[in-house]
């Protein structure tokens, strides 16, 4: 009788019946240790999604009666007034009533002058404007786009590696367009790995394929306890969450976003959906050293929205520029309070 051990490294022969009892006990112990095996990213994501669904369903039960709100839309194609559902209708739903152009091109909405996600429900009577990439002043939509791309980098890092590599995402800094690249800092737990050109292409392809998946970014405000439970497998995020919550308006809420099955903390706002991506490239993985978190990897990338076209020569020039180490602040617990995107939830005015 041959029994293969848990680690697949050797075979144990049980021909001798006198020894077999001791061996079977030993094998049973080995099999028991198999239950407490290493956690994979896939399992962690599955757990986060379950908590997200549960929490969203719970929040929806608070809306027992559908109330109407008046939304005044300003801007092309024409000014109009819509009667929408309070706490349910989103700017995207308004765009569906107004015209297909707004549905396709809008990155963000301005609700009473405040940037608002396309898929975030409206809560009161408001004035609504839509922002797109070719506005006269596209700063807000551009920043939302870069922030979303950082978010997508996190998704790529969590999904692209083999199951035995458990990647822990740390945080991403405020989008800085002049730096030439968006960034995600993560602990890949691969000290000797530096990606080949082919591997970078593979990572980029994950981002490029998101354009066809057309995932929308769903926003959810959750309580600290739920957020801690959601990110209990991530040492960095579980450290950051209490700090974020303290700085929020209520003092105990954290904003999380979901894209497809990927959930991450961000103060937002993010763009409407991943269908707006056109080119997306992961350009470099640099090693950085954080005083609190230890060695981390700074993953950089560059992308272009669908509505803007760019000659490939120019794009390759920008890609080359994006390979240089981004000088964004290195994530630390103290700096994170004011600078880091995933940590500082409510500091939009200060950071921008």
């Amino acid at each position, binding site marked *: 009788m041959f029994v293969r051990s848990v680690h697949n490294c050797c075979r144990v022969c049980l021909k001798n019946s006198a020894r077999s009892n001791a061996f079977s006990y030993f094998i049973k112990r080995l099999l028991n240790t198999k239950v407490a095996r290493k956690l994979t990213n896939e399992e962690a994501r599955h757990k986060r999604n379950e908590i997200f669904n549960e929490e969203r369903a719970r929040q929806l039960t608070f809306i027992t009666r559908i109330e109407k709100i008046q939304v005044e839309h300003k801007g092309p194609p024409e000014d109009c007034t819509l009667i929408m559902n309070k706490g349910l209708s989103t700017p995207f739903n308004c765009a569906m009533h107004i015209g297909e152009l707004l549905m396709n091109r809008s990155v963000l909405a301005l609700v009473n002058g405040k940037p608002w996600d396309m898929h975030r429900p409206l809560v009161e009577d408001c004035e609504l404007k839509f922002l797109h990439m070719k506005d006269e002043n596209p700063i807000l939509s551009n920043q939302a786009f870069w922030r979303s791309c950082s978010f997508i980098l996190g998704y790529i890092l969590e*999904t692209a590696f*083999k199951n035995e*590599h458990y990647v822990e995402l740390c945080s991403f800094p405020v989008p800085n367009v002049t730096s030439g690249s968006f960034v995600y800092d993560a602990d890949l737990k*691969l000290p000797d*790995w530096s990606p080949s050109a*082919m*591997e970078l*292409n*593979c990572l980029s*392809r994950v981002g490029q394929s998101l354009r066809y998946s057309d995932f929308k970014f769903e926003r959810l405000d959750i309580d600290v306890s739920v957020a801690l439970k959601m990110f209990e497998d991530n040492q960095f995020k579980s450290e950051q969450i209490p700090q974020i919550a303290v700085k929020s308006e209520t003092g105990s809420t954290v904003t999380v976003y979901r894209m497809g099955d990927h959930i991450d903390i961000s103060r937002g706002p993010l763009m409407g959906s991943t269908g707006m991506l056109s080119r997306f490239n992961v350009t470099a993985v640099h090693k950085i050293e954080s005083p609190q978190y230890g060695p981390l990897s700074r993953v950089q990338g560059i992308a272009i929205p669908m509505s803007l076209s760019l000659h490939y020569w120019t794009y390759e020039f920008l890609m080359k520029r994006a390979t240089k180490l981004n000088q964004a602040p290195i994530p630390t617990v103290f700096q994170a309070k004011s600078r880091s995107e995933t940590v500082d939830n409510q500091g939009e005015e200060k950071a921008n």
Partner: protein
Amino acid sequence: MAAFMQQVTALSEIRLLNFLKRTIDCTRYISYRQVSSSSSGNDNRFGGHREPLVGLSVDGSTVICWHPELTFPYEHTWPVPRYDPEIREGDSVLRVQLLKEDKMKYHQTGPTDVELANMFFTTKHRWYPKPEKMYRKRNPPKDRDGL
């Protein structure tokens, strides 16, 4: 002699050996030499007769040579160098699916012409590209005064 050897090469090696056993007078070997100790070690197909032999036929009219292909001694070999990039791909930390997609990026997806022909019970010609269709002149119906 050459014609004889050509004739015998058509036979398989075992049949050749049996043939030689019948024809050669084994007591009248002209030369005998052993090439490698390990080459004849495991190979028992020829009853250990891996060594080259030269002899005369029974009537003494033909010189017959027995020189089967020798196996290269294992102790004189080197491992095959693992420089193939495909082998190194397996060591990548990325998912195999992504690496496969990268390799197949220039491959056309979907069925081939032959598969389509089998699927729709047509000849393969039905599925060839027809660029003339693209450049065809439009011929919209005109109002005719005569009708």
